[in-house]
């Protein structure tokens, strides 16, 4: 719910892409290097118009591919520039090796990632397979349900990335949010500028008085130690994300955590979900609650670092849980979010009664998920709660079999 507490803010009608471009204008990074791809193109296209119109002093580098985009971002960030970019799907996939390099070099690059299905077959519509595919790269991943969250997450991401010294991606569901106009509460330029503050990197390649070596080779005797540092940085990012959210709430009046609990009070059945479909699910949950069914939802906002202990605690008392994945993993078993939830429950709730767990893959390639599908899921959860058989753990919903 949007509540205006900041008198200097204003309400605007913005699509997800427009609002991310606006956030970038207000953040005013030193460098943006990017390559267009549907449905993310507009974020950087609109931003480049801001640059052309002199509304933001950013050095905009139009590169020849997404691999070059991330390479240029790495160079800029290492030089000491606050750096941002945007991409989707195949673009993220093309820059895959550079994602790992950005993380390994601990560069706080912020990326607007508009979730789009990965080819083949070619599909330009919204699912989360692209960023799910990058979940081991060492990037902080913050998923947005709607345009308001996209705006707020982009602003927070700058502080998070710079404090954690980890590159950060902020997502929206492609077309569903990126191209859909919503009511967004925007905050004044000066407030955003004050919130993100100046960028003060510890090491800047452009500081010739303090030369340093970046990105040297590691042999068998050092790589492992460096990679431990990176994994530890991801673990250390969790409290940083919460601290930034707390500060954000003070200035902007909107609250964020690692995930959102919607009507989880005494919930007996629940779904875990990421992204825009949570909005649809909330409508269904309200109707179920009105009928006395204790249904709830957990919407994961921060997927990397994965808040395992916190999610396990939030799900501990629920009898039956359906994890909804808008990406499949060709793991031969379960989809990405389910796998992380299952390992969280198994390790955090060892020895206690555990919720029964099922997995749904939904919405691939922009396939709709409608209220009736959520009703089907909750209907099945009710039966499982009542002692019925789980059946197949993994199901695919709204696909022609």
């Amino acid at each position, binding site marked *: 719910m949007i509540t205006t507490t900041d008198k200097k803010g204003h309400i605007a009608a913005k699509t997800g892409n427009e609002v991310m471009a606006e956030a970038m204008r207000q953040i005013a990074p030193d460098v943006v290097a990017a390559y267009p791809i549907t449905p993310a193109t507009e974020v950087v296209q609109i931003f480049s118009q801001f640059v052309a119109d002199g509304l933001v002093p950013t050095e905009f580098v139009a590169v020849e591919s997404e691999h070059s985009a991330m390479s240029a971002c790495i160079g800029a960030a290492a030089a000491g520039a606050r750096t941002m970019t945007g991409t989707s799907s195949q673009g993220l996939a093309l820059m895959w090796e550079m994602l790992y390099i950005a993380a*390994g*070099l*601990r*560069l706080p690059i912020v990326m607007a990632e508009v979730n789009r299905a990965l080819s083949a077959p070619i599909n330009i519509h919204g699912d989360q397979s692209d960023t799910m595919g990058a979940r081991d790269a060492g990037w902080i991943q913050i998923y947005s349900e709607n345009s308001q969250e996209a705006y707020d997450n982009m602003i927070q991401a700058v502080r998070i990335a710079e404090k954690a*010294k980890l590159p950060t991606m902020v997502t929206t569901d492609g077309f569903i949010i990126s191209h859909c106009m919503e009511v967004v509460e925007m905050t004044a330029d000066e407030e955003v500028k004050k919130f993100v503050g100046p960028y003060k990197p510890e*090491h800047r390649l452009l500081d010739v008085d303090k*030369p*340093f*070596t*970046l*990105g*040297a080779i*590691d042999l068998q*005797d*050092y790589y*492992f*130690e*460096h990679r*431990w*540092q990176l994994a*530890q*940085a991801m673990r250390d990012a969790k409290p940083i994300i919460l601290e930034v959210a707390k500060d954000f709430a003070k200035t902007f009046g909107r609250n964020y955590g690692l995930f959102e609990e919607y009507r989880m009070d005494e919930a007996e059945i629940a779904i875990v979900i990421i992204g825009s479909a949570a909005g649809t699910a909330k409508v269904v949950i309200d109707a179920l609650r009105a009928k006395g069914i204790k249904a709830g939802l957990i919407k994961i906002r921060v997927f990397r670092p994965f808040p395992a202990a916190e999610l396990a605690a939030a799900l501990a008392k629920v009898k039956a849980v359906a994890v909804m994945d808008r990406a499949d993993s060709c793991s031969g078993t379960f989809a990405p979010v389910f796998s992380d939830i299952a390992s969280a429950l198994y390790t955090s709730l060892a020895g206690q009664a555990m919720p029964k767990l099922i997995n749904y893959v939904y919405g691939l390639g922009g396939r709709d998920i409608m209220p009736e599908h959520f009703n089907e899921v909750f209907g099945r959860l009710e039966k499982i709660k009542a002692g019925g058989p789980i059946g197949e753990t993994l199901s695919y919903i709204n696909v022609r079999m």
Partner: protein
Amino acid sequence: MNITDKKLSAKELPLGDVLDAGTACQFITGGWRSERPVWNKEKCIQCMLCWVSCPDSSIEVTDGKVSGIDLEHCKGCGICAKECPVKPVKAILMEAEKK
């Protein structure tokens, strides 16, 4: 100090693959040679071609004049000897590395 001597732990290492600059000079590579350049001061015409061509910055220069070979870093590639223009006998000749 040879920088490979002390192994730092994961907690001691500087973050993010960052190291001091210019530490290559601390890394001794002279032991890699199988033949070594020998510089003849009398024959040398100070053209600086060996210094320009050396891939390891191992031609020592003092006050703008070649003064010797840095045998701690010279890898014995022989480019200096090849490039030396002095005739009939070059000012740098390669000799087998003494064991």
